[in-house]
């Protein structure tokens, strides 16, 4: 690791980190701040798991914004492979190079050409290699890692534990600086033990009422505190029901925004029921929640 490269400033303490995150508009809880802090200190990736819409991806983005690092993102999907995640040889360019050789007749043995076409200029760096090779500070986000097959997961292991990528024709590319790595998962399948062992684990659940209210107040301009309070309490009630898809934080925000636009200053059961379709996306869920919103049972 060369020391003259621009480096990411180390975080001072979990609290300082939390405040810095707050300054870029991300309201984290103490656990999140502690884990991100540790990740930087231990130089380990963070595996963020939790229901959709709790701010997992946003966490990586906000950390990047906060530290001024570049965000390199690898969006996972079923069928993702080496050539899309690590690197690929630029086949066309290699072919051109060989053809140019024939046309121009430059003196050169095959070995030289071979060495030439399997070198950096012919390498197409995909997100993982790009994050490793970067000279500037980088936050690597591997989004929805639970979507790739178990076999593909293995691709990540070398990058995550040793921060290096082996390219058979060139040798091993080592990281010039250790990127801060975030992996997110919606837990649609169990990730492999090997992957989990290499990461710090952060479970991100729906926020507490207090924090969610802060989020709503921060993200919805012009909302009254009283309305924000009611919105959040209602969402908390709805989440306690057994639903197909509990409302995410972003849906809370959407709902609050809609209420503000509609010029509503206070919620009651009727208004809540009429606007539930912004919060919930399944018909059955809406019916279920509507039934519950008027009933007081402990």
């Amino acid at each position, binding site marked *: 690791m060369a020391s003259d490269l621009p480096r990411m400033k180390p975080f001072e303490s979990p609290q300082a980190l939390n405040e810095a995150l707050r300054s870029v508009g991300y309201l984290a809880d103490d656990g999140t701040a502690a884990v991100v*802090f540790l990740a930087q200190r231990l130089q380990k990736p*963070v595996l963020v798991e939790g229901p959709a819409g709790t701010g997992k991806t946003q966490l990586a983005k906000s950390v990047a914004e906060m530290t001024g690092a570049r965000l390199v993102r690898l969006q996972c999907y079923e069928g993702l492979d080496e050539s899309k995640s690590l690197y690929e040889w630029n086949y066309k360019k290699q072919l051109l190079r060989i053809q140019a050789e024939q046309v121009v007749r430059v003196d050169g043995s095959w070995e030289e050409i071979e060495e030439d076409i399997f070198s950096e200029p012919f390498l197409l760096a995909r997100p993982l290699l790009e994050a490793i090779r970067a000279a500037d500070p980088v936050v690597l986000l591997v989004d929805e890692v639970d979507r790739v097959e178990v076999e593909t997961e293995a691709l990540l292991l070398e990058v995550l534990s040793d921060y290096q990528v082996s390219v058979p024709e060139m040798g091993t590319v080592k990281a010039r600086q250790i990127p801060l790595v975030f992996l997110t998962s919606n837990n649609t399948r169990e990730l492999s033990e090997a992957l989990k*062992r290499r990461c710090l*684990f952060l479970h991100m659940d729906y926020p507490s009422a207090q924090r969610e209210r802060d989020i709503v107040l921060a993200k919805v301009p012009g909302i009254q505190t009283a309305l924000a309070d009611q919105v959040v309490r209602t969402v908390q*009630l709805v989440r*306690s029901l057994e639903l197909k898809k509990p409302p995410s934080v972003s849906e809370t925000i959407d709902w609050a925004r809609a209420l503000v636009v509609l010029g509503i200053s206070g919620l*009651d059961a009727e208004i809540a029921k009429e606007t539930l379709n912004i919060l919930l996306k399944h018909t059955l869920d809406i019916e279920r929640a509507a039934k519950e919103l008027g009933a*007081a049972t402990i």
Partner: protein
Amino acid sequence: MSNLSAPGASALGDGLFAVFSEFFSELRAAGVPVSTTEVLDATEALRHLPVTERETLKLGLGSALVKNEAHWRAYEALFDLYFSLRVATYGAASSGEGAGLPDAHWLGPQDASVPGTRDLSELAYQALLDGSTEAMALLARAAVARLAGIEPGRAVGPGYYAYRTLRRLDLDGLAERLAAVAGQAGGLEGALLANEYRRRLEQLRTAVDAEVRRHLVSERGARQLARTLRRPLPEDVDFMHLSREELAALQRAVQPLARKLAAHLARRRRRKQGRLDFRATARRSLATGGAPVEPVFRARRRSKPELWVLADISGSVAAFARFTLQLVYALSSQFSHTRAWAFIDGVDEVTELLRSAADMAEAVRQVNATAGVVWREGHSDYGHVLGDFVRGWGNELTPRTTVVVLGDARNNYHAVERWAMAEIARRARQVFWLNPEPRAYWDTGDSVLAHYGAFCAGVYECRNLRQLRRFVEQLA
């Protein structure tokens, strides 16, 4: 382990390190899979975390040790035993805004000026109304000191003392009064209040639990208490003995499994890529002067497998049946080609019931109320059920169909009707049998599993989540 973690140990000091070392091994003893790497990470983490801030320490250390959300409770309970509860914070920070609570001087049981049981109950009511966390913690402390009647040396679990405390506080009565308050508010506000009171009651219960543990830790030591409190991890709890809370946790765990099962069934052994599409490759090669630079492959065709689940919901497997239906429910929401049948001595399709039910409880009620699962007497009769099934739906089975039967194969000495199972196996792609009974009980008494098992691609014991997971993984 101690020599392995030597670098961290020097930073910690011997005494503290011994405590952590014991903590790690207790964590393993509780079943949480903690590898050596993770112990090293945790030790390293200790050097960076502020050891004086318990919550940060708990969360930070946990991120290195616990990689599965389902294990968090076990970890948290142990952590509290070892590190949080030992700290004597009595009297400190209690004179703040304790929601009308007097100073901590009345916390001792002998003081004559302490409020009586009734007053304490009244204070609890106030704290629950206000929802002040500090007040609730203080109250729990007072309540345990005054009401639990902890007898040193008596070998009872913490649950007993917690129960005694809450009963003397008249928690049920308090819940009723709170419900009345919420009812009076009515409408949306009433519903919101009810939800919050429910949560606060839970909070008070937890606080009392923690307080009892705090007392017992100082008396018995963390290690001893950890053994008393050890509970199986969620994935090891027998389906037959699930608490309501565990059932809820199970539900979350079943969802990804159902998805995985569906994905496994959908996958067929095949080339990773489709065949080479020669025509398309030739056409594309024109752009590069006739050199086939980018070969084109045919897209893979997705197979559409079907999953049929037959679930025994009779009394002998009642607890299992709830889980079974849950699995089926999860499957049918993940996987559109799932059909489900429930049976006791009659069999009826419940696919639509499950699909249209708003939640699990509703689904179970619907199945019990409307599905024709009882034919004669309401005791399992596998022979009749399978026969009926073949007659009713057998001709819809195709080579794409995988059939999973969930049940104990206890036939109450009715006719076995092997032919029916043979017929199902012949028509379907494969049949799996999941049995909630321990393997040792199979084919004893009226269990006729061997007769049916002969036609199955696999017969599995499925008594807990771990075994279910293994089954799903084996299918891969």
